[in-house]
């Protein structure tokens, strides 16, 4: 329905010293699209997520979000980051704040919502991810799955235009994976634009519009999930899938 993509990554290179971690990446993500990024460890998946909201600067190339070039460090960048939600492998909840305070901090300080409005919206989000009854607890008192759902609520509280997930279930005990994936699947259904780094093939099959396979800092292959899992074209992808699919 839109002509310009929400995220437009053009010829992006990123070096860590001598290490070329993103090599000439080109990727476009349209509004409402769910892109799953997979690939072996060290292939640059996290780095790709982190450059999209400029937690890391890029060495060359261009990243446009919602039609605008990512601004340099400063107020404008902070505003842009507030439009891109991010969920981390290790949850990263603020340990000294309650779950509800975690969720309302951004809206009150960045969006300048009134505390009462932020609380109301925050409680609604916590209900949506199924942990409203944990609102007054501290992160350490919650299970991993509950913490990750709280982290998703915290990101959603900023009313973002897109969400980035960097291996959101990798740190979870197996029995807690599905409660987090369920929340993500329902977000995808509601039309949220999402970039998800994950090895959860079930989620990719169910919710992704496109799978991006990365290896050694390059996008090696892109395809719809059915196509990708059934008939991976590149040898690297075939090799990778054979290792994780049994």
């Amino acid at each position, binding site marked *: 329905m839109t002509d310009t993509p929400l995220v437009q990554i053009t010829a992006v290179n990123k070096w860590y010293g001598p290490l070329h971690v993103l090599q000439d990446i080109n990727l476009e993500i349209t509004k409402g699209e769910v892109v799953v990024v997979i690939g072996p460890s060290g292939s640059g998946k996290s780095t790709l997520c982190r450059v999209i909201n400029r937690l890391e600067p890029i060495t060359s190339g261009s990243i446009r979000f919602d039609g605008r070039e990512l601004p340099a460090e400063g107020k404008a960048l902070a505003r842009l*980051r507030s439009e891109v939600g991010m969920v981390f492998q290790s949850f990263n909840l*603020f340990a000294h704040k309650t779950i509800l305070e975690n969720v309302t901090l951004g809206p009150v300080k960045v969006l300048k919502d009134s505390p009462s409005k932020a609380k109301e919206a925050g409680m609604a989000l916590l209900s949506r991810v199924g942990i409203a009854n944990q609102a007054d607890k501290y992160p350490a008192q919650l299970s991993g799955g509950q913490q990750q759902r709280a*982290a998703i609520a915290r990101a959603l509280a900023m009313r973002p235009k897109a969400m980035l997930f960097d291996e959101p279930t990798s740190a979870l005990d197996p029995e807690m994976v599905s409660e987090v994936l369920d929340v993500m699947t329902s977000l995808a259904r509601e039309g949220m634009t999402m970039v998800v780094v994950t090895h959860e093939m079930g989620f990719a099959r169910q919710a992704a519009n496109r799978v991006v396979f990365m290896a050694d800092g390059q996008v090696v292959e892109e395809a719809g999930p059915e196509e990708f899992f059934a008939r991976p074209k590149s040898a690297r992808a075939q090799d990778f899938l054979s290792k994780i699919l049994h």
Partner: protein
Amino acid sequence: MDVLIKYSDQFVSGFWVTFQLCLLSAIGALVVGTAVAVLRISPVPPLRAVGTAYVTVFRNMPLTIVMFFCAFALPTIGVNGNFLKIPLLDQLFRRLGTDLPFFRLAVIALTLYTAAFVCEALRAGINAVPAGQAEAARSLGLTFTQNLRHVVLPQAWKAAIVPLGSVIIAMIKNSALAGFFGVVGDLSSVADRLTGAGGEPIIPVFIGISIGYLIMTIPLGLLLDRIEKRRAVAR
């Protein structure tokens, strides 16, 4: 031991002067030290360099030299610490408002010196806050200052409170130097005067002076032990 009773008023007033010196310097060191710590972790490289230079200088210089410089060199370039003559505050702490600059200069010296150690204790506290939390705050759109104020510093303070306490105890002990750099009537200068010009026996006088310092340092140490124990239970 009669000396203790005979000169009790001098011991008490000496204690009061030292106490004022320590309280003001502690507040100053906490404020300056926090500012320097913020400089040291700032994203702007020149600011970081300023913070690092500050700590390098004041952590590696003997306090005696810092005191000497503040008491005798600063006045020659017209610095008498007059900015410390703060209305109302100088009613509570009379020494701040006097014509003689030495009390103010001693506060400045102790503040500058101790701030370097406060900075390092705080920085250790900041490093104890998982980097992921600061990153999450950045990803929400919090600015550097908001991130510090709402996420990093509240947790860093907690982690730093025990080391900070040790820094303050060291500062109280260091304050004894002030009596030899122009400050009149603090505990150490009382000792100097009673045993020197006063000709009183040395040992009883020193017992009296020691009590004065221990009254400040021991309760602070006990308080820190308690905080540490409660922390251990909570964990």
